[in-house]
C-alpha cells in the first residue's frame, strides 16, 4: 500500500508518497537524502538513527513515516550546520567526543534531548541518559565530557 505523508523536516514542509511500511529513517535517508541519520542495528537498540520528533528524541527506525503525519522532525542536519553549530555539536568536537562518527549524529540528538529534559546533570545522569545510544569507539569518556560542556553552554 502506498500512502502520502506530510510533515515538517528541519523547518521545511515535506509531502512524500511512500509504501506504508516505510520507517521514518528510510524516508529521511532514501527519499529526502538526509543521510546524517544512520542505521546501526535492526532491533531498536543502537540509537544511531535518533532524531527529534516534536522536540523529543526518538528512534527513527522504530516509527513508521505514517506515524509522523503532521509532526516536526529535526535531524542532525537541521540541528546546526558548519557555520552555525549547535553547542552540542561544538562540544563533541572540542571534547573529542567522536571517532568514526557513525553513532555521532544519533548521540548528539539524544544528548540535546537529555540536556533539555534534565534540570540538573551529573556524570551518572548523563551516562544513564545515553543508555539508548551505543558507541564502539570512544568508551563514552569524552562523550560525557562533551555533554557536560554543552550543557553549560546551553544553559547560559
Amino acid at each position: 500500500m502506498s500512502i502520502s505523508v506530510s510533515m515538517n523536516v528541519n523547518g521545511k514542509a515535506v509531502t512524500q508518497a511512500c509504501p506504508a511500511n516505510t520507517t521514518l529513517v528510510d524516508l529521511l535517508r532514501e527519499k529526502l537524502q538526509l543521510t546524517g541519520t544512520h542505521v546501526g542495528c535492526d532491533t531498536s537498540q543502537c540509537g544511531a538513527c535518533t532524531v527529534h520528533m516534536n522536540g523529543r528524541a526518538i528512534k527513527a527506525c522504530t516509527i513508521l513515516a505514517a506515524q509522523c503525519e503532521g509532526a516536526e522532525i529535526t535531524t542532525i542536519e537541521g540541528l546546526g550546520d558548519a557555520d552555525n553549530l549547535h553547542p552540542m555539536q561544538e562540544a563533541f568536537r572540542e571534547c573529542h567526543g567522536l571517532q568514526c562518527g557513525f553513532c555521532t549524529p544519533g548521540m548528539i540528538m539524544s544528548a540535546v534531548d537529555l540536556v533539555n529534559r534534565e534540570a540538573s546533570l551529573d556524570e551518572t545522569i548523563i551516562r544513564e541518559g545515553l543508555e539508548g545510544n551505543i558507541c564502539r569507539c570512544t568508551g563514552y569518556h569524552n562523550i560525557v565530557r562533551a555533554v557536560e560542556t554543552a550543557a553549560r553552554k546551553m544553559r547560559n
Partner: protein
Amino acid sequence: MYDFNYHKPSSIDEAIQLFTDLEDAVYLAGGHTLLPSLKLRLAAPTDVIDLAGIPGLNGIDYSGDDLKVGALTPHDDVSTSPVVQSVIPALASLAGGIGDAQVRNRGTIGGSVANSDPAADYPAAVLGLGAQLVTNQRTLNADEFFTGMFETALEEGELLKEIRFPKPEAAAYVKYPNPASRYATVGVFMTKTSEGVRVAITGAAPSVFRATDMEAALNADFSEAALDGISLDADMMNEDLHASAEYRAHLCVVMAKRAISQI
C-alpha cells in the same frame, strides 16, 4: 517489514470495526513492540491500525479515587508526571527505567501491558498495584488479566483504553536488568495496601506473577528478614544466556528485599 495497509481511525468504534473487517489486523500504539517484530519479519499482518488518531487515550488523571493512565500515554509522560510522582512514585520510577530515553518517548503503557512480554516492567506495576484495566467492552482486574507469556485476557480485537491504579499505602519497584537488552531479568513490584501486601514479579517466569509465599510472610512481618526463609521454585523460572533459573529465583528474593528497604 512486509507490506501492509495502514489505517488511522479517529474513534474506538472505527478501530474495532476495522479490526473486525480486516483479514489479519494489528493495533499499533507506540510501536515499540510491534515495529521491531515487523522489522524482523516475525509478524506479517495484512493491516496495521494506528490508534494515535483516537482522542482520549493519552493522558493522566487523578480526579477520582484511582490514578487513571490512558493506554496511549508514553512511558516518559508517566515517569515525569508530577501527579504520578506524588500519588504513586514507584510507578513513575518504574516508567523512568523502561528501555532508554528514546523508547520512553514513544512506547506506551497500553502497548506494553497488552503485549504481556514476560520481561516487561509495566505488568509488574499493574499486577502489584492491583490495577483495573478498562477496555472498550469491560473492566478487568489485574489478577485475571495476565494469562501467560505474551497472553492476556483481552479477546481478539478488544482494545485496552485505560489503566486505573488504586493509590497504595506505599510501593516500590526494583529491577535487575538484562545487561544487554535492559529488559527486566527480574523486577519486583512491592505494594502495601490496607488489604495487605502484594508482590508482583516480572521477568522471572513466563508471565508476571504474584509471589504469594512472600506476601504471606510479609503480611505477618513486613521486613527484609521475613523473606529470609523464602525461596522461589527454580523450576517455574525462565532461563536464558544471562541468567539461569536458579539465579533468577535468587534475584527475586534479593530484589524483593531491596524493594522493602525502599518502603
